[in-house]
């Protein structure tokens, strides 16, 4: 057992962990932070993506001991009260269906937009290729990311680009 300390979603935890324990299992089984799901065992799907020191990392590809001393943000700690613009955009643009890939997809997006605040569609598609979704065909995810990027840049969304939830005509001016 090895003593590790990490700050997860604003709370410091100290635990004795097996050196082989994956961070993702530590988060889920050790700390009860089950908002981070596991979708594969080969680091392909990205469902378990978290932010470590602000960088997106697949938490199945990191040992808990490697995260000693780190500050980790999971989907459960991304926002406090008001949703993060990326969370809002995913709902607004129907960028999720079953939602299993969504925590990873959102956190990977947060990192993507930090590094590239004005991505093109092509850059979004390539920037998220480490996160697999089986439901959406990605088109609405791409739309959500572009829309969140615009909002985070402080720009008005392009006219006609949103179909507002409460707009019966389906398109707002």
């Amino acid at each position: 057992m090895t003593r590790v300390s990490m700050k997860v979603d604003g709370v410091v935890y100290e635990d004795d962990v097996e050196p082989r324990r994956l961070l993702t299992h530590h988060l889920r089984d050790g700390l009860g932070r089950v908002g981070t799901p596991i979708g594969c065992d080969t680091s392909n799907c990205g469902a378990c993506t978290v932010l470590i020191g602000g960088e997106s990392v697949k938490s199945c590809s990191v040992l808990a001991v490697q995260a000693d001393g780190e500050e980790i943000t999971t989907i459960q700690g991304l926002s406090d009260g008001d949703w993060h613009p990326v969370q809002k955009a995913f709902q607004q643009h129907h960028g999720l269906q079953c939602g299993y890939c969504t925590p990873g997809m959102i956190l990977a997006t947060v990192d993507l937009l930090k590094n590239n605040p004005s991505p093109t569609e092509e850059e979004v598609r390539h920037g998220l290729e480490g996160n697999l979704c089986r439901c959406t065909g990605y088109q609405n995810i791409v739309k959500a990311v572009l829309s969140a990027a615009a909002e985070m840049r402080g720009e008005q969304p392009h006219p006609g680009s949103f179909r507002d939830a409460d707009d019966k005509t389906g398109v707002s001016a």
Partner: protein
Amino acid sequence: MTEELDAGMLATEIAEHPDALSAPYGGGELGRGRRRKEDAKLVTGQTNWTDNITLPGLLHMAVLRSPMAHARIVSVDVSAALEMPGVIAAYSGADLAAEDGALPCAWPVTPDMVHPDHKPLAVDEVRHVGDGVAVVIARDRYTAADALEAISVEYDQLPAVVDMEAALAEGSPLVHSDKGTNKCFTWPFAAGDDYEATRAKADVVVTRRFRQQRVLPTAMEPRGVVVAPIAAADEYTVYSATQIPHILRVMLALVTGIGEHKIRVIAPDVGGGFGSKLNVYAEEVLALVVARKLGRPIKWTESRSEGYQATIHGRDQIQDIEVSATKDGKLLGLKVELLADMGAYLQLVTPGVPILGAFMFPSIYKMDSYTFSCTGVFTTKTPTDAYRGAGRPEATYAIERIMDELAAELGMDPLELRRRNWIKHEEFPFDSICGLTYDSGNYEAATAKAEQMFDMTALRREQAERRERKDPIQLGIGISTFTEMCGLAPSRVLGSLSYGAGGWEAAQIRMLPTGKVEVVSGATPHGQGHHTSWSQIVADALGVPFEDVEVITGDTDSSPKGMDTYGSRSLVVGGVAIHKATGKVIEKARRIAAHLLEAAEGDVEFHGGTFSVKGSPEAKLSIQEIALATFAAHNLPDGMEPTLDSDYVYDPENFSFPHGTHLCAVEIDTETGFTKIRKYVCVDDIGKIINPVIVEGQVHGGLAQGIAQALYEEAIYDAEGNLTTGTMVDYLIPSAADLPHFDTGRTETPATSNPLGVKGVGEAGTIASTPAVVNAVVDALRPFGINDIDMPASPERVWRLLHPGGQRREASGTVAYGGVSTSTTSGGAA
């Protein structure tokens, strides 16, 4: 640049969604792009996946699986595992054989179908890689995984059976030696004129052999199960990542002998299914049996690689198809002979999947004769079962591929060939040659709209130019006009096909005293957005706010009756059940309103949530006021039950028949074999729309899975029966970078077989897109003398076809339409 691109993309989106612009209908909620109620928990990580469930004293189960495709089990020794710290129990198949029953198959398609025993853990013989051999129960998942290593199993290897045709040949090794054959069943069907006589009249006969490769459904959430026992009372709560909690409850009772009334099944939040969670699995039974033995809660969660061996696979057919036609392109007859790989055992509906497809090969076309036969074959592979579309994608692929081949043979434009043969809009309702009554459709309208969105003329021109100049990048255009049968299903039809259950769906509306509404539905969502759509249906019918409706699903205690979610049935059957239940609520409320308003019941009108008396508009009561008055029950009509709550179990009278036209343009780099989708246009007619945003998402996701089958995915077994694509590293699930932007449109021809006019949308994209893409690939390659390609059309496959023996083929110039051959052609590279 960025701005231009983004704005362009979004503007295109809007321009191509005129339906989203149209006014909603009904009470104002239907057709409205509501954002989903489901999303709040999903975007914040507050979801209740099965693997998130923890219980006091929870133990973890792990399954030891066969590393061999076929072997006799000589011995299983779990003693070393039992000595490990933290290991509570370990059982071989023999240890549990008296308790774990056999896994069910609910679809004996023929009376003489071979139905082998399917134990949750193998006892004497393993029959596919991944077949369970033993289980370990330990205090945590790491200890359980370690303990698997300590179990020693001695195998006596037997020959693998991998190839379906070889499996049927005389002298083949047998998957189930006690059955004396690898043939599971042969299911014949014929309709219309005698096929051979029809064929004799044909000018042109085209035959092809198509392969539906095996694919891995890969819902993003792996399967999992948690069983919480109250051992003293022999009562169990089973949490499972399943599409079918209601069916699972019945089946678990039948398999284990535990009373159905002592089993509660809960499907918590379920992360996708696509058919892979439409089953009764070994691990569900094992967790229940072990929890019963130990009196302690048990959890099992599959790893992805484990799931690739232990969760059902999809497709896997060899399709021999022959079409005969006149030189004018009039279809005369269609003959289909299928071999369908069952895998090693029959899961819940394994043999029924190709039979569902049998009715869809004639698709939207008129013909004089149709003959079909399907033979199910056992192999030493993971069982197949329903995967998104279940039989209809396979059928649609074969007919749409061979329509393109017939067009090429006739020198006719492939769209023109389809036009000459499809059912015209004025001919509906139309009895298909298979005896299905297509209630509505308008293939002309959907195709015209798709052609316009696609800009066919410009793309054909570019194609001709690229061919002319022998451009290394060749353009191909693929067409798929399709229909499917949704809304599984009229119970009587299922009965006539020997299916073991009905096709109805249950709904209940509960009016709470404060005017809020609870809707209980037997349809069980796993990503589709039922809670949002059902809220819209109820809000629309009852005139209550969307936000005041709560939908309850997925728990056999709170939603006790249901047939669950698959086959694009939820809206068409479950949604209609809800709609009909609201009608009963309104009629009860009307009686109470009349009583309170002192009016004749016939004079009380209901509109927008308010009951009023004809001619005296000031005399009115809201449905919420009626709900409160019913709760108080101080002043109700004599003899009336004090409740507005209403149930409806809806059994559809017919299937629904969504249809559409999909057009795909691909660019193929003839030097690398790489295929890029340049443009994808689909126009789907799914009847009336409840929520256009959700519909759009369903279409996109369906397209992605159909395109994935065409270009990327294949589960490959080697000659020894090893799954060589057994992890996500080896099995290519497309990412955002691999898929194109989809241009989607709709036409709206309401279904006439249900009061909502809806048809279902869950599988349309998957069914239509695979042939559209492959037709495009073949169209690009046809000048090189290539007239078929196996799926997935990977760069390697394309390159090898273009470079037989390493020598590059030369294009024979342009392929002009015109000229008629009377020869019989068969597929492959000429």
